[in-house]
């Protein structure tokens, strides 16, 4: 009984942490766009993700972390790759995304349906992760 209550509390905590991360990202993106540091306004949202990239902590129908250009300068393919690489190079962020149930990183331009996808599990550096958590 107590175990189930703890699981439910954990679930709510996880959901709030997921939305906090999204909110923080969007706030920082908005601030840097308003200040003129960023030529493109970025926004993140939760998507279904790619089923091939699933891992043990993946959320059902909520495994995609999509970064989308909203307005401003349209993104080139190289710029989309660079955005993806910046996120994937940030090990703490990747681990947090995995722990919170995301499995796919998507970067999309403001126009069209084409974008880029990465599997987060390939960039988690899980060996280092285990050493740190010991």
């Amino acid at each position: 009984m107590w175990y189930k209550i703890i699981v439910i509390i954990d679930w709510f905590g996880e959901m709030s942490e997921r939305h906090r991360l999204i909110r923080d990202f969007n706030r920082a993106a908005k601030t840097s766009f308003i200040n003129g540091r960023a030529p493109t306004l970025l926004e993140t949202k939760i998507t279904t993700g790619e089923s091939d990239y699933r891992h043990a902590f993946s959320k059902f129908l909520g495994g995609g972390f999509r970064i989308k250009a909203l307005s401003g300068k349209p993104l080139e393919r190289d710029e989309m790759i660079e955005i993806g690489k910046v996120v994937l190079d940030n090990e703490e962020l990747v681990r947090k995304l995995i722990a919170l149930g995301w499995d796919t990183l998507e970067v999309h331009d403001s126009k069209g349906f084409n974008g880029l996808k990465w599997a987060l599990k390939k960039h988690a550096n899980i060996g280092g992760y285990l050493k740190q958590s010991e």
Partner: protein
Amino acid sequence: MIPILLFQTDTMKVATLQTLNSIWILFWFWLAIIEFAIILFLLIREKKRNTNLAFSDLTKDIVKKSKTTTINMDNLMNSINSSGELYKELSRKCHPDKFVNMPNQKNAEEIFQEISKNKRNFEKLLSLKQRAMNELNLNF
């Protein structure tokens, strides 16, 4: 004569309807069995896939710590927008080839290695820029 024939045809109709009915019942029975088998197969496959997923050997307690780590989103945004230019500038100015046979050559090599390692981390690159200004006497 005529009523007997009518009766015979009626019984034949009833008989054919009964056989048709039993055939339909059999059909739906086997359809339900096949559907059940398909559902069972899909469930078993999904369960097998879940056990073969990445990180299935990790417990939730291990990853619990990283759920609450704070991420510097402003640094992430700066890294997306400005780390490329800063990296180019730093790697050009702090290249070890510029410090050959000089007393701070080793420092330059160390700093250059750090710059290459953190090429997409704006905060780290800024601190390396400061270090380069102090240790290599560079002006940016």
